[in-house]
């Protein structure tokens, strides 16, 4: 790939999530770790309970939020199994606000009206200190179950989330989220919900 192509790729793809520094891991049960766990649990509840305006308040205004495609590639090319050019979601704060306004300020967001019944099970939370004193790199696993209408079949969306959480005036804000899905072909009819 030549320089021009690399420069273009950089524009198409989101800003990379800062890498994990395993020497900077927060011990499970430490004060900040506990705060982070509480925030992620509360966030899951806000989304499960459709409290979208409150969730918007937990998003940083420089947010980048993306859900890459997954691609079936051979074992020796697993790095190519995450696609960040075309993705399932590629959002920032203004576009997230539009998504939320569609849900809260119109009566025609049919893809989620009536809303899905979702349960976000968050686990395997690991947190790391970053070079920014008020920002933490937080990884978590999530299993989202989604039920719509009178179907007894659940859509399952298992994923791993790479977050940057920022502590501002005693509150936690999501500054960065990348969601690594486990399906190459998603088994849910849309992502009108948030991961």
């Amino acid at each position: 790939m030549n320089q021009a192509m690399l420069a273009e790729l950089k524009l198409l793809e989101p800003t990379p999530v800062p890498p994990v520094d395993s020497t900077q891991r927060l011990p499970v049960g430490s004060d900040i770790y506990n705060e982070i766990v509480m925030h992620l649990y509360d966030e899951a509840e806000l989304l499960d309970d459709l409290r979208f305006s409150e969730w918007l308040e937990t998003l940083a205004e420089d947010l980048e939020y993306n859900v890459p495609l997954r691609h079936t590639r051979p074992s020796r090319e697993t790095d190519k199994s995450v696609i960040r050019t075309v993705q399932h979601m590629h959002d920032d704060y203004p576009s997230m606000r539009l998504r939320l306004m569609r849900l809260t300020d119109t009566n025609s967001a049919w893809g989620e009206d009536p809303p899905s019944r979702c349960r976000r099970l968050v686990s395997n939370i690991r947190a790391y200190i970053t070079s920014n004193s008020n920002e933490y790199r937080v990884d978590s696993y999530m299993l989202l179950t989604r039920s719509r209408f009178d179907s007894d079949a659940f859509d399952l969306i298992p994923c791993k989330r790479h977050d940057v959480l920022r502590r501002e005036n005693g509150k936690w804000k999501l500054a960065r989220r990348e969601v690594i899905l486990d399906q190459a072909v998603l088994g849910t009819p849309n992502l009108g919900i948030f991961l």
Partner: protein
Amino acid sequence: MADTLHPDKLQSDPVLRDGTHLSDLIDMDMREVKMRVLSDPDLYEIEMKKIFARCWLLVGHESEIPNKGDFIQRDMGSDSVIVAKDAKGDIHVSLNVCPHRGMRITTLESGNASSHVCIYHGWAFKPNGDFIGSPIASECMHGTMRSKEELGLRKARVAIWGGLIFATFDQDGPSFEEFMGDAKWYFDTLFDRTDSGMELLGPPQRFNIRANWKTACEQSAADGFHTLTLHRWLAEVGPYAKKPDAEGKGGDLSPEMYGCEVWTDHGHALRCIELDRKIARLTGKDPDTLTVEEKLTALPPPGITREMVPELLRRFSKEQLEIMAWRPPQVGGFFPNGLFEFIYLPQPDGTIVGAMALHVYVPKGPDKLEFTNYIFAERDTPPELKAKMLRLSIQMLGTSGLVEQDDSDTWPHQTLAAKGAVSKDITLKYQACYDNKGPENWPGPGHVGEGFTKDDTQWAWWRYYHELMTAPD
């Protein structure tokens, strides 16, 4: 096209398990289709054979396989295929099934291979599908009863157009040009606009919907009306929300419904939506006083900048340029399972940014389809604009698209309803008909209607569906 069935055709009119004929379910005079057609399992089997094994189908874009040996795996109806570039640079489409014991030759979505070796017993094939040999040549695993020529992968015919790769397993059917017919003149203004051509910005989004493929595809054949209700949010908080200087009332999408609609005998459909209002807003001038060049410069097509407009002027006929500046095709379908969106999206800052996307709705059984969303730009689109188009396309269309998430929630309900003992006899109605044949000065071919959107394009889709389903084997 005559509306009465030719006697020869009746003999090949599919008969379902309870003795019902397909032609009993489609009323050509009343322009109605019984719901049963939407998800009947008998019809599904026939569709795979008579439509998907016969029509030209979109399987990808050249920019996905730029190098020798590159390949992608795609679906043609219910069949998996390998789309590969050979050492000479030619593109081939072969069935992804080993002729030995039926294993998939590749299980990968993409890759690079100078030969494709089946992991089961090791039979090897060239990128063009030719059989190379089986392991341990001296023992001749493949026997001597069939020649090596007979043991290659089943090959499809291939047509490349604007870099788009189309293929068909019908060796004797119409040429790609015949199949596209009058639609090609219009599609050239979308898919073949620049010297460098289009490029895919990444692999397609893929997700499954519990709906029959036809629910998505009859809508793709240019259903304009659904925009007014299903996509009403567009005018409430979306890109078409009331602007301070807007004409008309806020929350009203109906002004966007005017223009021309074009349909062809092969079920291709195009909504050529008028740009005059947008151009008037951008220039502050009456579009009738502007030349084609001025209009194209004020509002270049998606992916095109004003600097690229001279290239359009050089490449297209006067008639095509007139359409591109006045009523360009913005959304519609290519039969049987493709949709195009080359749309102009108003931005909060008053500018307009384009999106270029193609969808393929892959049938996955009578009650399931895979939504495959390809997102494009022109190769020569400046990188900053490409990035903007990509984000907007992802935010509006496909998996999480604010527009299309409503569609993907609708089709499953139609599919379920089609199974009701009473519901299956309810008819889909296509009775909003144009009372004109388009403007007298309309410069393009095909069947044309002018004014507010109508159902003629979708009815043309069903007519061709009917024609293919009742054609002799």
